[in-house]
């Protein structure tokens, strides 16, 4: 299993996780949350490489998996995922109390 390289950034409303999983199709991705652990797994279709004889190779091909521990500040039921150009984007919305509030000075 390969570990996909990942960017994580935070805005006022959510955390966004972007993982690179080239070669993984949308129907071969598994995203789940269990015991506050977010798991992302991507399977490669090795059938693509049938009848291809390698002549020169620079990278390996294999499945991907990575896990992240979620804090209680994430609204786990509203996590969304999208896959585009080999990059999986997960949006993890924050719970209301974790969002920044402006405090007026009297």
């Amino acid at each position, binding site marked *: 299993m390969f570990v996909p*390289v990942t*960017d994580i950034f935070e805005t006022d409303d959510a955390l966004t996780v972007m993982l690179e999983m*080239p070669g993984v199709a949308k129907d*071969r991705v598994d995203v789940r949350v269990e015991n506050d652990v977010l798991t992302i797994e991507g399977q490669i279709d090795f059938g693509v490489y049938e009848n291809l004889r390698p*002549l020169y190779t620079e990278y390996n091909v294999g499945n991907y998996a990575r896990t992240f521990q979620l804090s209680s500040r994430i609204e786990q039921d509203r996590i969304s995922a999208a896959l585009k*150009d080999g990059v999986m984007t997960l949006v993890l919305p924050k719970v209301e109390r974790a969002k920044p509030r402006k405090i007026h000075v009297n």
Partner: protein
Amino acid sequence: MSTTFSSPFDAIFALQRALDARHQSDWFGSNTAGTGAFPPINIFQQRDDFVAIVELPGVDKVDLEIEAKESTIRISGKKEIGFGTSAGVHRRERASGGFDRTFSLPIDISAEAIRADAASRSAGEHTSVCLYP
């Protein structure tokens, strides 16, 4: 009595160096590609054709340019990553920027017959370049 011209330790040290080199290489790493040139390319033979599969996650095909001349293929473009001005970055592992790679094949290829395919091969957003000799 016997005479030996090579030290048995040479063989042991050579084995040690080979094991160290293999261990330090990226072959056992957690990523698919090593720390070599970007984008990494695999070249296969399929009957009389060549198929080059280029690992380009996060690159929009409009930002990709493929040129061919005689036996040489050039792949260039840019990979952009933006977080927005209001975002705070917690982890940054993905690389971005411009790239420009050229590779040659041992035979001349028909530039007109080259076909580039951004998504259908494995439906996983690899870019494959089919090269017809």
